[in-house]
């Protein structure tokens, strides 16, 4: 399988997961801002922080509003619309490999977003994010159900799981950072905030089913990091990554960085963790995930050694 094709399919998947995550976040975050009183002083800049866009916003946004910057600014290379552009381009150039229904769905999602994102900026509470999430799930379903689970599909899974693990860790990171500020107003609304965190990862319902207690920060974090069955937990993302790596040829080079991620996750003692250690933990995890991506790139997407 050509490296170029693997790379396109991998990134298509990463961008689609990124779009879905952003849509979930925006969907929940908008409601959260409405729920919290003004004295909580949370605004869209936190969402930008979670998505890693805050520096770009400070440098490039001019007078553009945060939500607009996040969703569709041409000055924001990581905006939802740009991510969809890249996803679409990757899908279009791998039409021989990826099921044609998936291409059609990606293309339609792109058209839909281009059409509707501006209205999402103007009307908080719009149903557009839910539609975007739904269409992303449709694409995931098409790929899982009609694409042979050969090497190309493994790259789809790798891209998605890496992006998902990264996003979950960012979410925890920022939540921990916010709670670190120690502001009383936020403490008061702690369960509202943590419920929002769960909902933005679509984890709320499963959390309630499996963790039958009040919503406490520690429990939410444990669930999102360690739960063995919830597909968006970092533990499950790691399982999925390991499985996909093993299904690819010459995966030995990725074993070490994969182990680093796995061991790091298991190393945290959630009983004694503070918001500070959590923040540090999440940072380090993201670095290790980046190292894993680098290993994937060197092994398969940019090979230098003769087979």
């Amino acid at each position, binding site marked *: *399988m*050509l490296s170029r094709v693997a790379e396109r399919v991998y990134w298509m998947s990463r961008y689609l997961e990124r779009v879905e995550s952003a849509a979930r976040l925006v969907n929940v975050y908008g409601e959260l801002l409405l729920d919290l009183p003004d004295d909580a002083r949370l605004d869209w800049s936190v969402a930008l922080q979670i998505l890693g866009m805050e520096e770009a916003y400070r440098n490039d946004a001019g007078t553009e509003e945060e939500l607009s910057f996040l969703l569709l600014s041409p000055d924001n290379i990581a905006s939802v619309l740009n991510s969809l552009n890249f996803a679409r381009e990757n899908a279009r*150039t791998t039409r021989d490999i990826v099921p044609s229904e998936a291409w059609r769905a990606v293309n339609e999602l792109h058209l839909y977003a281009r059409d509707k994102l501006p209205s999402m900026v103007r009307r908080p509470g719009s149903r557009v994010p839910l539609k975007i999430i739904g269409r992303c799930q449709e694409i995931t379903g098409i790929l899982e159900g009609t694409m042979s689970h050969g090497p190309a599909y493994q790259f789809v899974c790798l891209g998605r799981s890496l992006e998902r693990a990264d996003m979950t860790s960012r979410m925890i990171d920022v939540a921990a950072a916010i709670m670190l500020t120690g502001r009383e107003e936020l403490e008061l609304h702690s369960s509202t905030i943590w419920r929002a965190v769960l909902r933005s990862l679509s984890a709320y319902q499963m959390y309630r089913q499996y963790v039958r207690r009040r919503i406490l920060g520690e429990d939410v974090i444990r669930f999102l990091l360690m739960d063995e069955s919830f597909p968006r937990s970092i533990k499950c993302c790691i399982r999925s990554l390991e499985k996909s790596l093993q299904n690819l040829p010459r995966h030995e080079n990725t074993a070490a960085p994969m182990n680093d991620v796995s061991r790091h996750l298991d190393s945290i003692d959630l009983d004694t963790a503070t918001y500070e250690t959590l923040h540090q933990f999440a940072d380090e995890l993201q670095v290790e995930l980046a190292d894993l991506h680098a290993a994937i790139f060197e092994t398969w997407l940019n090979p230098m050694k*003769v087979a």
Partner: protein
Amino acid sequence: MSKSKSIKIDWAGYDPGIAYDEMIDRPGIARNAGRGLAEQLASLSARQLSQRQLSAENAILETGITFTVYSEGQNIDRAWPFDIVPRTLERTEWERTEAGLKQRLRALNHFIHDMYHEQRMVKEGRFPREILESSKNFLPACVGANPAHQVWANICGSDLVRDKDGTIYVLEDNLRVPSGVSYMLENRSITKQVFPELFARQKIQPVDDYPAELFNMLVSLSPRPGDDPEVVVLTPGIYNSAYFEHSYLARRMGAELVEGSDLVVGDDDCVYMRAIEGLTRVDVIYSRINATFLDPEVFEKESLLGVPGLIRSWRAGKVAIANAPGTGVADDKVVYIYVPDMIRFYLDEEPILPNVPTYQCADPESLPFVLDNLPELVVKPANESGGYGMLVGPQSNRDEQNEFREIIRKNPRNYVAQPVITLSTVPTVIDRKLEPRHVDLRPFVLQGENLYVTPGGLTRVALRRGSLVVNSSQGGGSKDTWVVG
């Protein structure tokens, strides 16, 4: 006027005029090879005929058979224009044509090899040095190279035309990246759906072998002995007008479809493919990229399509490229004039298939004749394809002719002239009726260790009444081609 839905095809009323019709000999009388088809068509009503044409068009849309036209700065994907009435050929006549095509390609390959080595034909005065020297496609970087079996043009699409007296001529030899074979294959597939009953009733030569024959020919070029050489199809990418064909052939052969950026030349001068399995050695490249874009180390430095070092690898014999770079020296309308001489010089045989009589404007004896007789001639640039930049005398007016005279005078070497050939015709579905339309034929000839010719080939049809221009980029369509018997 009421719509007569049940009118049957009236062969007595079908009139090709002075042209030779491939199916019909005289009004109401079909030729041998066309008889079964003519009877079948005669049994259909206008409505049934039109329904079959429509179902063929739908099948094409669904299968996604397209071709790309550059128009007004955009690439437009058009559905492949196809007419359901096949063009028929007699098997015994075809066998002779086939022998003529093989002879021609063998001679051309001797010529090309000679031009990049001793240039015997020039030294012995049988081919003018000035023509070689003014050839745009002679590539100095290829001098002294030794492709497998000394064959440079592995795939050739020679266009054939039949004049009103029934003689088949070779109109030109397309040696660089001839295209159209995938449409030939798809046309047969569609026709089997439209007229399945005829395939049972008559012996029609199959064409499906082509991808296997192409693959075998490519394998025979491999520099590494062994059973499993790595064969790839090199494409400029999805924006190329023939991309559909590149992808189609790669799939049918089971070969990888690659772009320049997927390949890398190692320090060992071998070509490798960047794959998830690691760098994988490539033995044979079926290149659909023009030679001058193949290697930025040697040719166009700005080209992003090619592979740096590819020519180095090819010269070192580490990779085979089909068609070899440098083949274009023989893909020239002036060089064409000498092909019968090549057959005599290299093979010591008389040509089986004749050239269309051709006048070189560069020849001081021919130039006045051409300039005086423009209204009766077709004048073409030596190096263009697609039917552009030419003058069709009988269809032009005085102003166009005068303009063209000046163009010729400025650069006579670049133009050749031929008498207008009244191309043969084939019944074609026009508004629920069958009308004669002019056609040509492009068979594909393969040469590696052995030679192979496609039975029939791609028949291209000029869909506008009276038009002799068959190129798809200018409103032509195509038909299935049957060698019957």
